């Protein structure tokens, strides 16, 4: 079957005009499982630091294992929450302009959260 409207590459990829298929669905599950594991470890770290002094908290966050867990969690949650909020935006905001602005703001917010958190952890880890 040949359609003049689709390129051979487009047919091979099997994707429509949205240019993506189940990527969001899959990544949302992937990050859910990742966050599930990481959040349990993170919760243990937070409980161990309750009421502790600045120096203790700083020293714990400087531990490479703790730092890597938090960095991985930041990556996992920001990807997960960006997709999740985009679904909510697409479901409830029907004005095209407002919707596009909200999706842009969503990307900005999740990027800032991820980068700011990662910067803080890395600064502590690198002896800041």
């Amino acid at each position, binding site marked *: 079957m040949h359609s003049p409207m689709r390129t051979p590459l487009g047919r091979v990829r099997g994707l429509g005009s949205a240019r993506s298929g189940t990527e969001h669905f899959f990544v949302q599950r992937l990050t859910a499982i990742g966050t*599930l594991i990481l959040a349990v470890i993170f919760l243990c770290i937070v409980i*161990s630091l309750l*009421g502790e002094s600045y120096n203790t908290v*700083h020293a714990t966050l400087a531990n490479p294992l703790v730092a890597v867990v938090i960095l991985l969690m930041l990556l996992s949650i920001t990807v997960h*929450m960006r997709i999740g909020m985009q679904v*909510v935006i697409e479901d409830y905001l029907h004005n095209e302009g407002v919707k596009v602005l909200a999706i842009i703001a969503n990307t900005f917010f999740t990027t800032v*959260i991820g980068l700011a*958190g990662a910067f*803080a*952890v890395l600064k502590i880890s690198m002896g800041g």
Partner: protein
Amino acid sequence: MADSPPRIVRPISPHLQIYRPLFTMVMSIVHRITGMALYFGTVLLVWWLLAAASSPNAYTTFANVAGSWIGRLVLLGFTWALIHHALGGVRHLIWDTIHGFGPKERVLLAKATLAGSIALTIIVWAIGLAVKS
């Protein structure tokens, strides 16, 4: 040229205001609400990390706010939202395996999610308060 037919106002699909709230439906909505709460709650997480990366003074400010009664109330809600959303997520993962869709299973899973989230929140806070004292 013929007149275009008048636009017919068709009934739109029934939505939240129309349906009688069902337990599983409310749980689905709560999953979204907790997800959104956690979304904005990440500001607290980043505040904590940035405060620890900044200075003892910045950390004291954070610790004072987090330790105040309103701060603790927010953190309690944060804990419950996190656990509820996590268990709701596990429920979704079970559904992904094409299990848990039966009429009894659906309600059972929803009840387990709600009961589990409350129980685990109490356990986490009990451990937290025990560790702190």
